[in-house]
């Protein structure tokens, strides 16, 4: 029985976390609600999942849930890897821009030092 309580508490925390993310689309919230309702039902009445499992040709309800979780994890991994690699290429763009800018600044500073242009700029500002 303790395990049910633990699962329900974790589920409640997860649900709370998802719902305070206000930027989520209504569609996401509806899907999340359905999943939460199903999860609560299966935690309280695990035997409810057996008929569905039988209908789909999987041994027991617990097996079905394990498979669903595996599929979900694969989707999540692919999704986050894609996001991760997009971030990587964004980061490259930033690093590149910075390298080019840094060089420009160095060159400008060198020219200023050589010609004396802008020598008083710091003083004027202060």
């Amino acid at each position, binding site marked *: 029985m303790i395990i049910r309580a633990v699962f329900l508490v974790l589920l409640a925390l997860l649900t709370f976390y998802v719902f305070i993310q206000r930027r989520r689309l209504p569609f996401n919230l509806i899907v999340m609600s359905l999943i939460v309702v199903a999860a609560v039902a299966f935690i309280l009445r695990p035997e409810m999942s057996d008929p569905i499992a039988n209908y789909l040709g999987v041994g027991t309800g617990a097996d079905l849930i394990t498979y669903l979780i595996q599929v979900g994890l694969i989707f999540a991994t692919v999704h986050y890897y*894609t996001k991760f*690699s997009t971030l*990587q*290429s964004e*980061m*490259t763009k930033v*690093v*590149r821009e*910075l*390298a*080019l800018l*840094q*060089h420009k600044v160095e060159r400008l500073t060198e020219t200023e030092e050589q010609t004396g242009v802008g020598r008083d700029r710091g003083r004027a500002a202060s």
Partner: protein
Amino acid sequence: MGAVKQTLSLAVEQHARDRLARESEAQLHGMWVVIPAYNEGKMVGEVVANLVTLGLQVVVVDDGSADNTQAVAKSAGAIVLRHVTNRGQGAALQTGIDFVLGQKASVVVTFDADGQHSAEDIPALVATVRDEGADVALGSRFLGKMHGAGLGRTIFLRLSTFVSNRLSGLPLTDSHCGIRAISASALRDLRITQDGMAHASQLLYSIARHRLSWKEVPVTIRYTEYSRAKGQNVTQSLRILFDYFFHRSRGGQP
């Protein structure tokens, strides 16, 4: 009379020297060498100095090295751009390319920092682009010479060329040679978005896709213990293949 003769011959000599200088300046004008470097402090100085002595304009992209690559390259006479964090060889190359295109480069030579390439191969590569009108001149160690490569490396290189040719559709003798010359106009089509080592395959794929003209040029590669340690192995090439296909599956050019 002797003095006049001497003055005259001096003037003739000076004129010849000026002419040579002018010609080589015209030839070197708009020509840039881009060298991506990551922790290459030991070799990059010598590599840059060799190129600078030939009168070439060199830009080294220090890809977030932890050693003194930046300082060494700069004191050897290169312009150094620095990535604040390591982004990979492909990313470093593209940074260098962006920079030299901004400097109105007409031909860009890509060159490795580990000392395996020979500066003497550059004129032939550039001439292939400038005089023969090819968009891209690709170095080939199998048409040229390769020193210090064991049987294992030779087989590995042949195999990766075979795989790469299947992917790009180009019938090359050497698909992963880092020394090449590319015209500025072609570079606008050949944007490298593969930050890692898969950029070499991406480049070939893009050449085929944009129907750019290319030619292989014999080059000499010298493997040393240093450059061998820096080279690719089988595990890394599997990673490169993964990057290639992952990128491609996302709708980008691989």
